[in-house]
């Protein structure tokens, strides 16, 4: 049984080919014309966004489309969206690592990079939203611990630190590999970052233990991050914000959009860097099933959230409910329903459409839908206050759209930059899997050369999957 499971996992992903470090390293060290074109295009968008930002700093938040009572809009929507996407790394990497899902090996790093980079844009959108960004440090010099925003500051900084460490640790052996292959400034850069990695058994043991510990630590931190983000809304007494299920609802939505983000990134990286051998249909199939499950879970939470409000018929809640489902925000709400459930479910529930192209379409749809979900949570509640004051239809200004485009472009640029400094696929982890598989096959075939034994992963894994633990020997 265990043999079959292992074979089923490994074979399609790594069909008997040796891991070729050169193929993965080559795109790191070379820059093609297409890369340059994209980098320039993205840099141009970022430059335009910088101009918009300076404009906003100079003129004040009056250059946005915000007003009373819609005090929050695109920036806060983006904040929640980006923090949500940051859950990609944790789920894919940490959870799959803990459950020893073999197919994770070629996708963990892609996911972890998204987490770390996107967090900066989550925090960045809060700074964009501040009326006085020059006083942002007041939250540290004059903290008020009863404010959910301060909880956010604390949990997001912890998450940023933990996920950076979690990205860095599995990078070390690959940095060392690059260190040994290059000269010049890159050599010095990698030498410092490699921390003297020589691949000794003791180093490997320590690294595996550290990665194992971090994989467990980042999960509760990640859950806390999006729970606290939801509490920014849920802790107020505003209609359709003050909801007990917002914590888990936001966590589910975050994992949902996170998986969609990583599938999108995988398709692009696979195509651009010719990594078809490492990112196979099985990866997209498995992630597609995960996305399908999250889509159903999302529907359940969304249904539970809205049916209770509707059944209760509490007037202030109902006015937000009506605006969201049937009023001026109805197009956004039903587009969200279409993008978050109908499209992904139709594509992913059918194994024949759960292809690379299919999961990509579903993922883009989910990302659009989840952005709309954040928008339809933030804006309708503010647009329908309890008091009968004048309200207006919020339309984001060119500054807000520009800064949003700038965030996405800057993220893309940083992601591209990362792929030119570090391998986007974890070479050593693939090689380890290969060694394990080879050892296991040898064991199965009875050719002697017993590779197993209680190894670095400890007794539990050694008992179930001896080859995995013994791969290093």
């Amino acid at each position, binding site marked *: 049984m265990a043999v079959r499971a292992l074979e089923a996992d490994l074979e399609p992903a790594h069909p008997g080919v040796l891991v070729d470090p050169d193929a993965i390293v080559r795109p790191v060290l070379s820059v093609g014309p297409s890369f340059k074109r994209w980098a320039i295009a993205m840099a141009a968008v970022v430059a335009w966004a910088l101009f918009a930002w300076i404009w906003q700093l100079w003129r004040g938040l009056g250059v946005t489309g915000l007003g009373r009572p819609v005090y929050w809009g695109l920036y806060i929507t983006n904040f929640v969206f980006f923090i949500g996407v940051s859950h990609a790394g944790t789920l894919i990497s940490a959870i799959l690592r803990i459950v020893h899902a073999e197919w994770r090996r070629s996708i963990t790093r892609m996911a972890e990079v998204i987490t770390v980079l996107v967090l900066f844009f989550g925090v960045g959108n809060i700074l964009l939203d501040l009326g006085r960004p020059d006083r942002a440090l007041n939250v540290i010099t004059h903290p008020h611990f009863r404010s959910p925003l301060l909880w956010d500051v604390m949990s997001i900084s912890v998450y940023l630190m933990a996920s950076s460490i979690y990205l860095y640790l599995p990078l070390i052996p690959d940095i060392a590999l690059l260190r040994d292959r290059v000269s010049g400034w890159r050599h010095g850069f990698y030498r410092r970052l490699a921390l003297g990695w020589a691949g000794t058994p003791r180093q490997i043991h320590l690294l595996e233990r550290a990665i194992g510990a971090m994989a467990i630590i980042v999960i509760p931190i990640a859950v806390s991050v999006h729970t606290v983000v939801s509490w920014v809304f849920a802790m107020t007494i*505003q209609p359709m914000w003050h909801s007990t299920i917002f914590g888990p609802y936001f966590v589910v939505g975050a994992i949902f959009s996170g998986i969609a983000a990583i599938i999108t990134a995988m398709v692009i990286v696979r195509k651009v860097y010719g990594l078809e051998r490492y990112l196979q249909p099985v990866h997209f199939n498995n992630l597609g099933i995960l996305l399908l499950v999250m889509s159903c879970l999302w529907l359940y939470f969304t249904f539970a959230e809205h049916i209770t409000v509707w059944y209760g018929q509490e007037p202030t809640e109902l006015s937000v409910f009506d605006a969201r489902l049937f009023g001026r925000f109805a197009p956004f709400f039903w587009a969200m329903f279409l993008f978050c459930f109908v499209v992904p479910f139709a594509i992913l529930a059918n194994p024949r459409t759960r292809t690379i192209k299919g999961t990509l379409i579903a993922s883009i749809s989910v990302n659009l839908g989840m952005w709309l979900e954040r928008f339809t949570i933030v804006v309708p509640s503010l647009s329908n*206050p309890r008091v009968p004051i004048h309200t207006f239809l919020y339309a984001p200004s060119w500054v807000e759209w520009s800064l949003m485009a700038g965030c996405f472009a800057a993220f893309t640029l940083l992601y591209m930059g990362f792929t030119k400094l570090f391998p986007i696929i974890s070479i050593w982890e693939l090689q380890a899997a290969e060694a394990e598989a080879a050892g296991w096959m040898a064991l199965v075939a009875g050719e002697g050369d017993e590779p197993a034994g209680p190894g670095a992963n400890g007794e539990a894994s050694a008992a179930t999957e001896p080859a995995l633990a013994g791969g290093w020997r």
Partner: protein
Amino acid sequence: MARWGLVVDLDRCTGCQACVIACKHENNVPFSTPASSAAGRLMTWIQLVAVEMPGRDHRVPLPLMCQQCDRPPCTDVCPTSATYLSTDGIVAQVYARCIGCRYCTNACPYVVKVFNWTPPEWPASMQGMMNPDVSVRPKGVVEKCTFCHHRLMIARERAKAEGRELASEDYVPACVQTCPAEALTFGDLDDQHSAVAAAAASPRAFQWMEELGTKPKVIYLREGE
């Protein structure tokens, strides 16, 4: 310590908006245009809103200002303590500490906190007409009704200089002083002999959205039969 409160008698209120003008002048609240108001940029610390009242077939004008809650939802959420419940019972707003995140504006169920979207501007004819006792707020911070807190500080200083206790009648906000219909009564709610305590004890008295548990110190008297 006094518990400063305001009683608004809707039966006396004529909707003349003299309080709105007095407040704007007293507190250096910038002017707004119809266009900016339509875009949600109205700067005001007190405004008349049309409210449905039980037993009335038309909407009743109701002066809406910071309700000076004893349990303010806005102060809890401020990440920098820039807004807090002062020992005077007045919800304070420290402009120099506010980072402009607008969390308090969103947490307030009365939506009475306003944000400085742009630098404050006044027509040229207002040159030299500013109240020197009230600071002008820069762009990017939140502001709201303070019960004319500067007047309390001045009254307190004067009482001290004259070597006596601060009396309830020493301190009155600009809106109350101005109201020609005498619809507004201000004073110490804890002083049983004060006019404001007597008005607050009226059977017509109610606190807006008292079901939210915010415990406002602005008390409205519904119209008589």
